């Protein structure tokens, strides 16, 4: 009988039913007031015949005798009903405070066959909730992209809510539901929130479920309230660029790698074009099966700086347009400069065997550069040389002399961070070291870390390798001298040198280059403490100041496109930002969100909201009023032309 109860309206203010009691005085006054106008006519003969006519005695005609009364009673009934605020109850329980989270991440821009985006569908559903808002209910709208933004306070002001709903726009970033949940959690401290509603396409960050081997959306959050997850219908097929990077193949050429991925829902086809400085540098045609991806490689000359734009030109339907472009800027190739004193023969040997590396001091002893890309030295003074990457060999930093002493005893490597960039593919386990750095008594690891050092390798008495970051500069400290170890004779030594060089190449933007993703603009090195104007792709701009290191950091980049950085109107730099997110491009959607203690399944059916009837009833009352006016003002019927 639930279908029956859903059709029986409820009343929000049943107390207004007292208005029905006004029916009594209306009836009384009507009959007291009923005084007919006397009209003398020549004869009643015809009128008596009319009255005696059968049709006159029909029930409807009897009703007509008091039609004014009936109209007035109907009008009052409608007004009383409208005042009682009837509504058809929906599926959802009525809550006083209800936060509504709306996913506005990039995948919500995916369109279906009708051309509607997921966000538009979500907005339509939320708009219904706003329309069906009952007195005493208050909503707050929260848009969730890579961060959450509260659009309104808790309010029942429909125009405000509608305006806020309309203001929600797609941000070209992956979604991060945690922020929205945390915001709701903060609201729950001041309002009684039992439940929140989350509208999303289900394209959330996933990880593989170890139990099932399938991806699942796991959210590290302890829910203090219930979550109703409303999943938007799936969009159409899509193909997009998910990666664009370049690696220097040699001195003359960059290898540009471009990955395109398709949705699991169906095959996709597209033409891929790579433009370099406005010229076509390469193009290809890609046909992907469901869920497939393909990596394309293009060669780009490295003799000059290149501004690369990768474009997808879909053949057929493409649900998401924003993942069809990506930008990458490649600098002109040059030799990488390394300062390495002649005493460090082992390092120089390793460096000189690498192509495109200029090692100084050269044979004539000249080392006149102000800055290098890499400094490798066992002289403490060389630590001050200007270079983004520095490796100090057998040198104890000054600020650690109070904490660590170097003992003339053998040491062995107990553990090391294999994933540290310096130590990738380097095996230190069997390296024999004749010096042993030892922590002084009372010194603990956190004490060293507090000074800004990261311990990359541990000996049996203390740290062996440290890393210190100072702004953009990275300094590695080998607390033992390589000449007093077997490290130079190990296979891992040239790998370690190569890792150093790779990091230096990265800093010099000469090794590998990756296209920038949406989210935050990559840091740009500019003049210190100077204000720059950053113009977004949509034409809006903001003023930003560089920090003490001359870096322009923390500029939000929520839209794909090219961001222009200007100083006093002059273009300083231009950075293209693409979506480049496989999960957003795949439009893969989960129908269950796993929270810390429970999981939330997407609702199968569209939520039926309360449907208020009082506007319709009020309109009917108005129409009845107009009808009454027309009925009693109209020209009498039945007069022949």
């Amino acid at each position, binding site marked *: 009988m639930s279908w029956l109860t859903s059709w029986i309206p409820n009343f929000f203010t049943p107390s207004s039913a007292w208005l029905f009691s006004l029916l009594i005085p209306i009836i009384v006054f009507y009959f007291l007031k*009923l005084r*007919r*106008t*006397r*009209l*003398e*006519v*020549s*004869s*009643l*003969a*015809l*009128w*008596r*015949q*009319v*009255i005696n*006519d059968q*049709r*006159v005695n029909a029930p409807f*005609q009897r009703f*007509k*005798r*008091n*039609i004014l009364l009936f109209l007035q009673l109907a009008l009052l009934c409608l007004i009383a009903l409208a005042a009682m605020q009837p509504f058809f109850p929906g599926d959802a329980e009525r809550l006083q405070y209800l936060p509504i989270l709306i996913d506005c991440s990039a995948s919500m821009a995916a369109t279906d066959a009708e051309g509607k985006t997921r966000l538009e569908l979500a907005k339509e559903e939320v708009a219904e909730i706003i329309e069906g808002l009952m007195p005493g209910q208050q909503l707050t709208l929260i848009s969730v992209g890579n961060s959450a933004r509260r659009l309104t306070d808790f309010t029942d002001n429909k125009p405000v809510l509608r305006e806020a709903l309309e203001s929600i726009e797609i941000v070209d970033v992956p979604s991060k539901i945690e922020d929205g949940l945390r915001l709701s959690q903060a609201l729950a401290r001041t309002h009684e929130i039992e439940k929140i509603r989350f509208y999303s396409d289900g394209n959330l960050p996933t990880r593989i479920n170890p139990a099932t081997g399938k991806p699942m959306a796991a959210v590290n959050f302890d829910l203090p309230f219930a979550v109703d997850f409303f999943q938007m219908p799936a969009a159409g097929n899509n193909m997009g660029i998910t990666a664009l990077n370049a690696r220097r193949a040699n001195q003359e050429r960059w290898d540009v790698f471009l990955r395109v991925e398709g949705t699991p829902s169906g095959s996709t086809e597209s033409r891929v074009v790579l433009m370099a400085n406005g010229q076509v540098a390469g193009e290809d045609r890609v046909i992907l099966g469901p869920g497939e991806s393909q990596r394309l490689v293009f060669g780009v000359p490295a003799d000059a700086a290149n501004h690369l734009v990768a474009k997808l030109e879909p053949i057929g339907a493409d649900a998401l347009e924003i993942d069809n472009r990506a930008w990458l800027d490649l600098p002109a190739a040059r030799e990488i400069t390394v300062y390495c004193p002649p005493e460090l023969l082992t390092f120089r040997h390793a460096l000189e065997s690498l192509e495109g590396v200029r090692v100084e001091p050269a044979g004539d002893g000249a080392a006149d550069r102000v800055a290098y890309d890499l400094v490798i030295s066992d002289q403490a003074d060389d630590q001050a040389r200007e270079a983004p990457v520095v490796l100090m060999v057998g040198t104890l930093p000054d600020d650690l002399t109070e904490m660590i002493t170097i003992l003339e005893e053998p040491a062995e490597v107990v553990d090391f961070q294999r994933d540290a960039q310096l130590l990738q593919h380097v095996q230190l386990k069997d390296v024999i070291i004749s010096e042993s750095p030892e922590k002084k008594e009372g010194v603990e690891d956190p004490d060293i870390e507090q000074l800004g050092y990261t311990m990359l390798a541990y000996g049996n008495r203390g740290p062996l390798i440290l890393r210190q970051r100072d702004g953009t500069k990275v300094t590695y400290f080998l607390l033992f001298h390589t000449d007093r170890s077997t490290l130079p004779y190990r296979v891992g030594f040239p790998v370690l040198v190569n890792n150093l060089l790779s990091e230096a190449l990265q800093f010099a933007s000469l090794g590998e280059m990756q296209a920038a993703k949406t989210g935050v603009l990559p840091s740009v090195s500019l003049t210190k403490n100077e204000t720059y104007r950053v113009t977004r792709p949509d034409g809006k701009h903001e003023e930003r100041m560089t920090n003490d290191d001359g870096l322009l950091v923390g500029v939000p980049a929520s839209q794909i496109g090219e961001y222009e950085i200007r100083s006093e109107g002059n273009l300083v730099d231009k950075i293209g930002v693409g979506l480049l997110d496989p999960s957003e491009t795949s439009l893969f959607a989960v129908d269950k969100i796993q929270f810390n203690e429970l999981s939330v399944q997407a609702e199968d059916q569209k939520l039926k909201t309360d449907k208020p009837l009082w506007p319709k009833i009020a309109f009917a009352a108005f129409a009845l009023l107009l009808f009454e006016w027309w009925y*009693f003002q*109209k*020209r*009498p*019927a*039945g*007069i*022949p032309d």
Partner: protein
Amino acid sequence: MSVSTSQFTKLLPNDVLARAERMRINPRRRRTNRMRGEHLSGKGGTSIEFSDFRDYVPGDDMRYVDWNIFSRLNQPYLKLFAHEEEMHVPILIDTSASMAFEGKFELARQLAASLGVMGLMSVEKVSVYPCGPPPRTTPNLKPCSGRASLKKFFGFLEGLSAAGDLGIDLAIEEVLKNHRGKGTAIVISDFLTFGDVSRSFNLLHGAGLEIFGLQILGPSERNPELTGDLRFVDSESSQTLDVSSVGELLGIYHEHRQALEDYLGSECRKRAGRFLSVGSDAPLKTVLFDTLLRQGWIR
């Protein structure tokens, strides 16, 4: 009606009067009296209008022997002349209170005057019977004829007023109790009566009178524009009738009014009479010299 001092009667303008004097009532059948008159009878008579010859038989009036033929043929032949008989034109004018509405009575008197003039000038026996007041309370205009009776005729009509509550059907029966003579009965009324005129018309027909029924209705009776809840008061009987939503009933009212008109027309035609319904707002000249002339009431 404004009356000019040069007018013969205040009922009719002089031009209408002059024209009416030249016109004649045109009955469908000859319903005449034995009395000599101007209507030629089908029977032989003593008028100057030659009809036929026949053989003389003893006893015939010698004055009608055609002596010229006798001198030629030496046989007496009798000259036959058409008999000219007089026709009665009783005018029954409804003087009940219902006629006092919207100029109905004025038009009724004008039409009665016009038709009466035609009868008088045709040397018919024109009489006037007011129908409305209780029986034997109002004098009638006795049958009169000729131009000499015009003054008396107009004077009688001018003296009539609309007051009374006798239905036209009953009034006709009362008239027939006094009237003698065949001819054409002109009944001018609104025929808004609770009774049935069928019996009255039968009596008229039986009395040798051809019925000329003239219904006069006011504009509000022909096309009432009423709305709301009303209490109708009968002008004759002061009876009341409460009607709600009058506007919705106007269609039925019109059906009944049309049905009454059709019924009266049918009743008149069944008795070889004529019937016409006119509005009281219709101009006299239009009714008289257009409608009645075209429909053959007068010639």
